[in-house]
């Protein structure tokens, strides 16, 4: 069963580009958190509010959510055979992805204002 717009080279390449960004960013975060003393509330907020962190976390959020969307979509297309089921599950997944995006950006934005 084909699902127009859900297959092809574009999601394939996005999946790989996002994977590379996520991999390096996770390494960066692990190194930061392993080499920094336990944070307090104001240090943590200041760290997230610093422009380079705020922006790179925002990019990380986009990369993770886009990567998750493509990955979960592939799983759904493999295991949910009928169109109505796919539409239903993918709609729920899409709402979770977009909702998380809005919430995450709200958090990133409110810490800088």
């Amino acid at each position, binding site marked *: 069963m084909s699902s127009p717009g859900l297959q092809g080279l574009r999601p394939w390449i996005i999946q790989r580009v996002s994977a590379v960004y996520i991999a390096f960013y996770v390494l960066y975060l*692990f190194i930061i958190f392993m080499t920094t003393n336990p944070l307090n509330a104001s240090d943590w907020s200041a760290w997230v509010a610093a422009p380079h962190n705020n922006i790179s976390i925002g990019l990380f959020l986009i990369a993770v959510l886009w990567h998750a969307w493509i990955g979960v979509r592939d799983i759904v297309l493999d295991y949910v055979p009928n169109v109505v089921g796919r539409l239903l599950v993918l709609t729920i997944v899409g709402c979770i992805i977009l909702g998380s995006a809005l919430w995450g950006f709200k958090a990133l934005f409110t810490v800088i204002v």
Partner: protein
Amino acid sequence: MAVTDNRPFFLNLLKIRLPVTGFVSILHRISGMLMFLAIPFSVYLFDLSLQGHDGFHRTVEILQAPILQLISLLLLWSLIHHFFAGIRYLLMDFEIGLDKKQAIQYAWAVFVIEAVVFVLLAMEIFL
């Protein structure tokens, strides 16, 4: 046209004996799915942790609950497996580790490396 075919035909996942490459693959999916399911709650905690002193301490409190320690451990494994299995797939895109023997070796390498890294990080973070 009667063709005798004695090959087993079943889709019971518990009866299918996967090769090691298959395990890396299915665990890549399972770990990815687990992390996807954790996204909304993680975003909630991220937001909460940025809401001043109280929010930060509430977040630490939540994360220290035994059930969440367990879930964190599971997500740590998910991340590590997804990371190393993912690197294996990226290498495959560059046609590294594609022939059968190498594919199996690299799959074992993923499991060995992930086990070591998981134990080291789990001890570092949780002890």
